[in-house]
């Protein structure tokens, strides 16, 4: 359980990463390469930012400790794109950070950002500097859409890589799952007004049309409002079989509580925005029970040794359990390490140009989120969407994701 205190220790962990360079196991003659990490550490998203960032810290600490790339030491430099002015992530600060990364030739690659709004501001600048960035969680399809290539990668080459599938897949595959596997006939769609939520709900809605799944309505929630009972009453009056929620936990946990009261029988589902500890902790049981959630990566079940081992290491280091984007961040960091390893082994120079090209060509057959390979736009080639359902297991800790989210299967592809 991540208690308040342990979350703060975790905060301390990442805070130390500001000037973080693990010396253990490093040789004096090692060459240091710098990797930038851009997170929204100030403002509303700071807690999840810390959880996500810890994934990268763990990857680089271990790589340095075990001398994974001989002669190379990784230095992870933290950037904060959250500002008090914006009260959350601030695209202007993200752009400033991108310029800082580009200005310093010591940076060979970057990680982040969490939010697509920041990604949009950073991508053109990084493209000018040919500095590759891998985002663990920004899922807006526009940034890597070839249609907007002139805007987001004016130099042509992909620099915005993702270890997460865009909204363009999670929504449709969940629609397939609900229509084909669960077999509902009608659905009501809600989103939380955020970029992620609107995008994923839009793609869900589009697929519903193709499937012939009857969409009874679509509404947008005010994420700051407390009360969704009026919207839910409206849904109740329409006798919908299912409810799809595109959005993150902020509105999601409140929605879950009220759905449990007002629409106890409805089939409810959401994207990876609600696949997390917050649903379990914030909404609690019985409210969280029964929610389907998709996740944009293949699932490794509990028996997987590697996953278990990762969770244990993470727990030992940060006193908490990793969440979904911790994993994608860890894998993103691993992709950089693997790329540098390949370059070093091939005797090639290690700089941002070679790292970008190396990332484009990297193949990780067996990462924690399955095979990782990037297409020419920077998107993950592997587009497997897993489906989970919250099923209360009273014998295990009620706020542990692995215990309470039961793996259902892979959502049918379109």
């Amino acid at each position: 359980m991540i208690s308040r205190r342990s979350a703060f220790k975790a905060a301390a962990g990442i805070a130390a990463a500001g000037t973080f360079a693990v010396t253990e196991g490093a040789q004096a003659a090692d060459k240091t390469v710098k990797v930038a990490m851009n997170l929204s550490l100030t403002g509303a998203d700071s807690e999840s930012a810390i959880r996500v960032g810890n994934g990268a810290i763990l990857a680089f600490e271990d790589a340095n400790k075990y001398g994974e790339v001989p002669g190379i030491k990784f230095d992870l430099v933290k950037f904060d794109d959250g500002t008090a002015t914006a009260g959350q992530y601030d695209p202007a600060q993200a752009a400033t950070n991108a310029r800082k990364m580009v200005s310093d030739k010591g940076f060979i690659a970057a990680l982040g950002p969490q939010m697509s709004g920041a990604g949009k501001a950073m991508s053109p600048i990084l493209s000018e500097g040919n500095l590759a960035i891998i985002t663990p969680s920004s899922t807006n399809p526009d940034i890597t859409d070839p249609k907007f290539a002139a805007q987001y990668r004016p130099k042509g080459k992909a620099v915005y890589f993702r270890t997460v599938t865009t909204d363009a897949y999670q929504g449709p595959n969940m629609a397939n799952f609900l229509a084909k596997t669960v077999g509902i006939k009608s659905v009501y769609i809600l989103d939380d007004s955020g970029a992620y939520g609107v995008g994923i709900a839009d793609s869900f809605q589009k697929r519903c049309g193709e499937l012939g799944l009857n969409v009874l309505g679509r509404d947008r929630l005010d994420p700051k409002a407390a009360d969704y009972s009026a919207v839910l009453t409206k849904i109740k009056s329409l006798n919908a079989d299912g409810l799809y929620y595109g959005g993150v936990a902020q509105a999601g946990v409140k929605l879950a509580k009220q759905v449990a009261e007002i629409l106890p029988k409805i089939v409810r589902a959401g994207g990876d925005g609600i696949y997390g500890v917050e649903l379990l902790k914030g909404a609690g049981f019985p409210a969280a029970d029964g929610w389907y959630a998709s996740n944009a990566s293949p699932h490794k079940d509990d028996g997987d040794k590697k996953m278990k081992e990762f969770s244990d290491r993470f727990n030992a280091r940060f006193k908490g359990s990793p969440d979904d984007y911790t994993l994608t961040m860890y894998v993103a960091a691993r992709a950089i390490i693997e790329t540098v390893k390949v370059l070093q082994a091939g005797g090639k120079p290690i700089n941002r140009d070679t790292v970008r090209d190396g990332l484009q060509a990297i193949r990780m057959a067996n990462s924690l989120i399955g095979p990782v390979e990037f297409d020419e736009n920077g998107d993950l080639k592997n587009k497997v969407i897993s489906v989970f359902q919250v099923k209360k297991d009273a014998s295990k800790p009620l706020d542990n994701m692995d215990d309470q989210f039961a793996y259902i299967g892979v959502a049918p592809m379109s």
Partner: protein
Amino acid sequence: MAVTDILARPFASWSQQKRQGWATILVAVAFAIYPFLTDDDSNIDTIANAMSYATLALGLNIVVGFAGLLDLGYAAFFAIGAYYYGIFTAYQVMPPWSSGWEPLAAVGLVEKINQGGGDLVHFTLSFWLALPTGALVAGLFGVLFGAPTLRLRGDYLAIVTLGFGEIVPIVARNADSITNGAAGLNGVKGPALPAIKALGFEGYSFGVNATPYYYVGMVLVAILIFSSIRLRDSRIGRAWMAIREDETAASAMGINLRNFKLLAFAIGASFSGFTGVYFVSKLQVATPEMFNFSVSSMLIVMVVLGGMGSVWGVVVGAALLQLLQTWILPRSTDVIRAIGESVGSDFLMAADLVQWTQMFFGIIIVVMMLFRREGLIPATRAQPKLDLEEQQADVKRGGFVNVDRIEKWNPGTGNALEIKDVTVRFGGLVALNKVSLTIPAGGVIAVIGPNGSGKSTLFNAITGLVPSEGSIKFEGHELIGLRPDEVLAAGVARTFQNIRLFPKLTVLENVLIGQHCRLKTLPFGAIFRPPAARAEEQGALRKALDILGLFGNRLSPRANHTVAGLSYANRRRVEISRALASRPRILLLDEPTAGMNPNETLELAEQIGELNAMGLTILIIEHKLDVVTRLANRVTVLDHGDVIAEGTADEVQRNEEVLTAYLGRAHRAKIEAQDAAAKENANG
């Protein structure tokens, strides 16, 4: 102040203006060469961001600092400017192409594109054109949002502007087809300089390089500082400050409250629209979250920190807060952690002051409000000290001096003011009951009566401050139904019983505000100062000094002092000067000698007499009977809203009803008894 004092010492021989001028040039040069001194683009970018906050703070300062209208949703206009430019350059709104678009394509505002399917229109608004038009669009929204709120008192204004600040991002988020909703606009264009073939200039695209934006930002800040200062030191800035200090007095001094509040909203908004265009062109992304309440409240913090109404103050406030966020807190965090590491304290090593930024905002607001409300760099200038000669100058009693510098009045003939059956009601209370009164041109009429008899209400009715029934004709024109500023423009000026000057402004500014309705300068003239505007301003200044000069060395040496520091008698004199500055044809004086000692009273009475001798018609409320006797041609007595007597001073003093009204029945009986006894004595 101390530091600047020390810095200024070697240049003591220079005039303050010269020192400020050189300091400004020095700062400008430092900023101009900075990009050559750093090779880190992000430092340049950080300063460019700070510049856009400085321009926003300057705009908010117009609304909050100058005009005193607390706008808590200022970021809305920022959003409007940003989305205006964003929508007209991004690939979002693309109507189908038709030949009707060709003229616009010819001037480069649109282009024909094809994304598969039919031909579409892509807007390609130039950045340079968007800057002024963005300001205009935001200004229009300023008027639109301002108009319904202006009737509301300040507190309500705060909540309604807060509401508008919420509404604009919500609209941006939910009007998907125009704004691309929450995902934000894609493909907002950066600025470019067009090619000039004749000079062999190939054109230049700003792209993502921070330096050109930095210079544009610098020019923007310079333009807005310049405009702010020019506006502040003009008829318009004075009108705003008058509204801020005292709305009622401002209105009575000829300022059209509605127009000038709207103007403040519009100009403040246009600064913000300007910045919005700049900001979004630099970022090339616009999302609704960029303009939420945190931005508005952060701007309030900047203005509060720097000093409300202080142009340089708010710029410094904006700079300090950006510095706090981007440099001071991260660096202090590093230092604290280093200390923590050396002493082995986990607590210190875990410190992260950046997380505390908003906490510091809160603390800054609280501390500033408690201990330094005027901000770090107060708007009110230091008071020039009187030199020894001026201090010791013998203040001599007497009439006006240098009267010949003031234009004489031509009172004309007939009646100046005809008040007929005027009734004023406050709810059920009748404060004035069918009062009729005539003031002949060139005369002095006094109104007397016990407290609460309706004298000041009569003045308020004449000057349009309270609604009334009946008829008040000034030189044949009906005054009822006019606003106070219109009444003043018609030629009726007044003073207030409880002195309503603008306390934080100087004597000179107060008198200049009196001239407001006789001056014509508009924002354009105020900022660019064409010869006509310059001449008008200089004329106004001369006239103000001449009017102050009437009181000899009582006011002239104190022209640049704030009114709050003056003696009571001098404040009375300033108020009369302010009224005279409007070039009235009739002057309404509400107990002008109240609170003055006998000498001062006598002096003022003489001066009022002198004004009348110069041809000015005067209506005066006065308690001191010697003043009334000395000045007034005729006296009207009010009691409980009724005229109870009229006549010469002597006549009304003998009027029985007046005696009753003033002294009560018992006293009257006593006087009557004395009179009777005296008569008997005389007879006997």
